[in-house]
């Protein structure tokens, strides 16, 4: 149906779906109609679409929980359409929305499910269980002997992910894994999962009905319409900038620009310079710094260049000259790190006193400032880059890859 996006031409195809059809008995229309899709190694591919579009069915075709009526599935170039389904599933991690932990087994036993099926020895399994619990941020000693009902929803979800990764599969299928979790925990788990994926680089097929989750989590998004027809298969940026048709445009909805700033990170944009003084400076030095700039306040840094206070002329006027800089002015809040998204940064700015966000590195050392103009420029730049790229692609006669 859809050609592979040009940018991925050099990546290895991990999973190839070829003309997959699923026709459930007793239904006039097929649930999945002739779906072809290439999924590249190490990417998170999101299958997203309205309810009933066949995205979950499509996912279950991959590990053959649902057997296709026709078509073929390739894993690493091997046709697995007719291989032993149990063997196939042991190579593919599987996480579902309800998680489906075994309530009568301990956390350790749950995680050990696939390694036991594969016949690992006890020592290796125990070591792997502890390693995985640590990977998902849970203390093995505290948790391995507990039962699922003794965990919170977020913890169960982590165990679900750990269980899916237990035999270190290259491929993981995740069906709305964060769907049943409260929004705050979901956001945290999504971020944790993205950080984890940076290390493990698995090929992940992720089903959701939530376009925002798709944009946040996906390296590539397949927007599916009825019967799993691929309306567009492309990177989130390109789908937002250039939706293939009205269906896609409708589905991503309004506020595509707002969504886009959820995609860019502080480290991708140019930071503003800002006048700073060390906290050991005198009031006189600070006043001179203020006079030599058009900014209304100066940022005070401590000896490790960590942001401490905002100080303006008013503050200086109101306090005796012997007060240390660290004790006057306003606290330097709204601090973000380079991996923060622009939308997180914007959020910080809106609640800060100066409508500025201070960027620091992991050691909390001052890096620069983001203000509203910086974000505006970044959004405009993204849009222009994308248009330019598309123009260049058209001129080279490649055509727009994802257009049908």
């Amino acid at each position: 149906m859809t050609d592979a996006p040009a940018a991925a031409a050099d990546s290895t195809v991990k999973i190839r779906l070829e003309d997959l059809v699923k026709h459930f008995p007793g239904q006039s229309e097929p649930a999945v109609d002739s779906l072809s899709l290439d999924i590249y190694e190490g990417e998170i591919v999101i299958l997203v679409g309205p309810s009933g579009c066949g995205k979950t069915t499509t996912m279950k075709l991959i590990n053959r929980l649902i057997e296709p009526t026709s078509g073929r599935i390739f894993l690493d170039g091997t046709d697995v359409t007719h291989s032993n389904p149990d063997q196939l599933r042991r190579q593919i991690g599987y996480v579902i929305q309800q998680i489906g932990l075994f309530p009568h087994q301990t956390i350790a036993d749950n995680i050990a499910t696939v390694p036991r099926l594969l016949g690992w020895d006890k020592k290796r399994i125990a070591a792997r269980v502890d390693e995985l619990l640590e990977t998902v941020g849970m203390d093995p000693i505290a948790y391995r002997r507990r039962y699922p009902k003794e965990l919170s929803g977020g913890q169960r979800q982590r165990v679900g992910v750990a269980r899916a990764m237990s035999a270190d599969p290259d491929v993981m299928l995740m069906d709305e894994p964060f769907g049943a979790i409260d929004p705050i925990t979901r956001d945290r788990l999504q971020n944790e999962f993205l950080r984890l994926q940076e290390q493990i680089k698995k090929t992940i097929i992720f089903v959701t009905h939530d376009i925002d989750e798709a944009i946040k989590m996906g390296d590539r998004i397949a927007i599916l319409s009825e019967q799993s027809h691929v309306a567009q298969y492309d990177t989130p940026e390109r789908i937002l900038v250039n939706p293939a048709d009205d269906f896609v445009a409708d589905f991503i909805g309004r506020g595509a620009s707002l969504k886009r700033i959820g995609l860019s990170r502080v480290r991708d944009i140019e930071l503003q310079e800002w006048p700073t003084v060390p906290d050991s400076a005198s009031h006189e030095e600070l006043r001179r710094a203020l006079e030599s700039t058009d900014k209304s306040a100066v940022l005070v840094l401590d000896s490790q260049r960590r942001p401490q206070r905002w100080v303006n002329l008013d503050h200086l006027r109101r306090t005796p000259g012997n007060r240390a800089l660290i004790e006057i002015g306003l606290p330097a809040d709204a601090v973000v790190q380079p991996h923060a998204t622009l939308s997180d940064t914007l959020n910080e700015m809106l609640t800060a006193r100066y409508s500025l966000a201070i960027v620091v590195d992991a050691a909390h050392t001052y890096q620069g400032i983001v203000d509203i103009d910086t974000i505006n420029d970044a959004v405009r730049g993204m849009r222009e880059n994308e248009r330019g790229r598309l123009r260049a692609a058209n001129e080279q006669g490649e055509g727009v890859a994802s257009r049908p």
Partner: protein
Amino acid sequence: MDDESWLQSFLTYLEFTWEDLFALAIEHVIIVAVAIGIATVVGVGLGVATYRTQRPREIVLAVTGTFLTIPSLALFPLFIPIFGLGATSVLVGLVMYALLPIVRNTIVGLREVDPAIVESAQGMGMGRTRRLLRIELPLAWPVILTGMRVSTVVLVGIAAIGAYVNGPGLGNLIFTGISQFGSARALNLVLAGTFGVIVLAVLFDLVYSLVFRLTTPRGIR
């Protein structure tokens, strides 16, 4: 006969015959336990075989349900032509009575297992048999055990009727008592048999509580 002499007479009777009573109680326990054992194997087997298909499931439940409606006084003699008088005929009857609660609870227990749990097991590459043995049956176990418990209580009572066809157990006291109706011993015999059955039912229930504790994992208690 005033109350005190009635009780006095019964206690004196117990004092002299407790060894016989104990022997009969043991017989009673054995025939009930064996019947429950057989009924569990057959019942869980039938449940496992039919819980996913509607027609067979309905048939099994209807048939085992019918067994339970046959009066025991009529059922036990039915087997005399085949198995003769005695324990075997009683055992077959008891197994039939025990089936319904066990089959029914096996089916209910298996069908109540969260489909998401079964799906995740399947999705991780657990085959049909392993899924049944490692996931579905353990999760259905508390419900199955409850079925066995109900069957046991029913059987402890019904087993007493088995003495009517020369079966073992406490029923013998009751039937002997009835046959000697009017004599001084008759009441003692009937009382001893009846109390014996009640005490056994309570003891069985205690054993089930213990078994439940020992065999149900902490995660689903």
